[in-house]
């Protein structure tokens, strides 16, 4: 073959795709195809897993022009990475869209639900410790822990700063496990609660309706408090609340609709395929990625345990009992976690409707996960000094 190439140098140019092909490329095509299959066949976060899967295939064609890093000939996925992820722009834009979709009314009506959401961030820190024990360096361990925020954009935001090489697997783990909430949470909740606890009914005593003015001032309030406590979180929480104020102000309906639809769709599309583009075989086919996938599941389990155990602890000190299952909704996987838990309550007792409480905790999870992300962002550099 070498003699042939020496005789006909142009063959090298024509056959470079074949000549550069290895089993690793083919393995990555299979992984990309699995992600696409899960998205199409099982509806697992299709808006992200489908572009990620396709991006992974594009990135693993030998000498792919999509991921070329030759100066002056940069591939479009490299350009998108530099322009949207390396500088943290895409996650921030996604947060504007999420904020415009969020309704914080249940949270304002019953702010105590935020404590469950805080407890449900336990998985982040427990997983970070586990990852460090497995040999990951601290910055990487903390970035792996962030999968427990159950919040794709926060995971990408933290990873793009402290674990660029792991961005692909971290994003895939975050979005995959978010879509697996109906599979992960119910057995964990059942294992740590009794049937009687799962049947606890919750009322709405003392919960007043929320005024438009309170809804309008809420995002400003949260940004100011979070910003002062952890200035590094302003980009995340600020964009989330900016999106929300577009919605609740009621005067920029077009902007709010654009954020919820066009912006969300466009950025999600670019974000997905760009993350897929980072999943090259040499970065993805490693033992570390297998650990990341395992630790992602651990993070979701510990989140669930943290939220439920906190609710059970609260029940020991209060007269009015709460259904401890709602503690599991404190993760950011909205509204899936709230729906899953409400369905579980109905399964235990068909007259037990806890959906509003569950969704309230789930909305609080959106805020708490961003606060947790901000704290991790602040603590990584502080602890690595």
């Amino acid at each position, binding site marked *: 073959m070498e003699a042939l190439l020496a005789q006909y140098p142009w063959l090298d140019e024509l056959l470079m795709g074949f000549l550069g092909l290895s089993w690793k490329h083919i393995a990555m095509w299979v992984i990309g195809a699995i992600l696409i299959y899960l998205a199409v066949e099982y509806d697992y976060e299709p808006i992200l897993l489908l572009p990620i899967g396709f991006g992974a295939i594009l990135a693993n064609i030998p000498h792919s022009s999509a991921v070329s890093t030759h100066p002056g000939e940069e591939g479009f996925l490299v350009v998108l990475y530099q322009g949207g992820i390396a500088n943290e722009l895409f996650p921030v834009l996604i947060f504007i869209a999420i904020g415009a979709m969020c309704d914080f009314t249940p949270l*304002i009506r019953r702010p105590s639900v935020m404590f469950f959401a805080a407890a449900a961030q336990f998985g982040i820190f427990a997983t970070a*410790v586990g990852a460090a024990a497995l040999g990951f360096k*601290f910055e990487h361990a903390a970035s792996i822990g962030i999968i427990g925020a159950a919040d794709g954009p926060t995971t990408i935001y933290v990873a793009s700063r402290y674990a660029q090489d792991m961005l692909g697997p971290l994003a895939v783990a975050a979005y995959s496990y978010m879509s697996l909430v109906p599979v992960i949470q119910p057995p964990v909740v059942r294992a740590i609660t009794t049937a009687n606890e799962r049947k606890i009914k919750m009322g709405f005593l003392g919960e007043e309706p929320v005024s438009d*003015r309170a809804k309008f001032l809420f995002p400003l309030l949260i940004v100011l408090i979070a910003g002062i406590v952890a200035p590094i979180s302003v980009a995340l929480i600020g964009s989330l609340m900016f999106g929300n104020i577009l919605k609740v102000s009621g005067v920029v309906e077009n902007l709010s609709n654009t954020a919820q639809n066009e912006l969300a769709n466009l950025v999600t599309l670019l974000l997905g395929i760009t993350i897929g583009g980072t999943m090259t075989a040499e970065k993805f086919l490693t033992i570390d990625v297998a650990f990341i996938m395992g630790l992602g599941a651990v993070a979701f389990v510990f989140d669930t345990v943290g939220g439920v155990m906190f609710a059970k602890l609260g029940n020991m000190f209060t007269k009015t009992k709460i259904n401890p299952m709602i503690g599991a909704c404190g993760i950011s996987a909205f509204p899936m976690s709230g729906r899953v838990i409400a369905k579980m309550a109905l399964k235990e007792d068909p007259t037990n409707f806890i959906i509003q409480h569950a969704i309230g905790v789930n909305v609080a999870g959106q805020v708490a996960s961003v606060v947790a992300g901000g704290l*991790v962002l602040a603590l990584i550099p502080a*602890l690595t000094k």
Partner: protein
Amino acid sequence: MESAVTKALKMMAIALPTMFFVIAIFYVATKALHKAFPAPVEDEEEEEEEDEE
């Protein structure tokens, strides 16, 4: 030189209480906001109508 595990444990020890502290501030501020700007009677009726729908 601290190990990664020590740093991760330290992060947990600092971040979790801070998290609850921040959430406690959110809680107090949100309660105060809700109390300072109660829903007018019309809003209540609207919400009830929405609920019925």
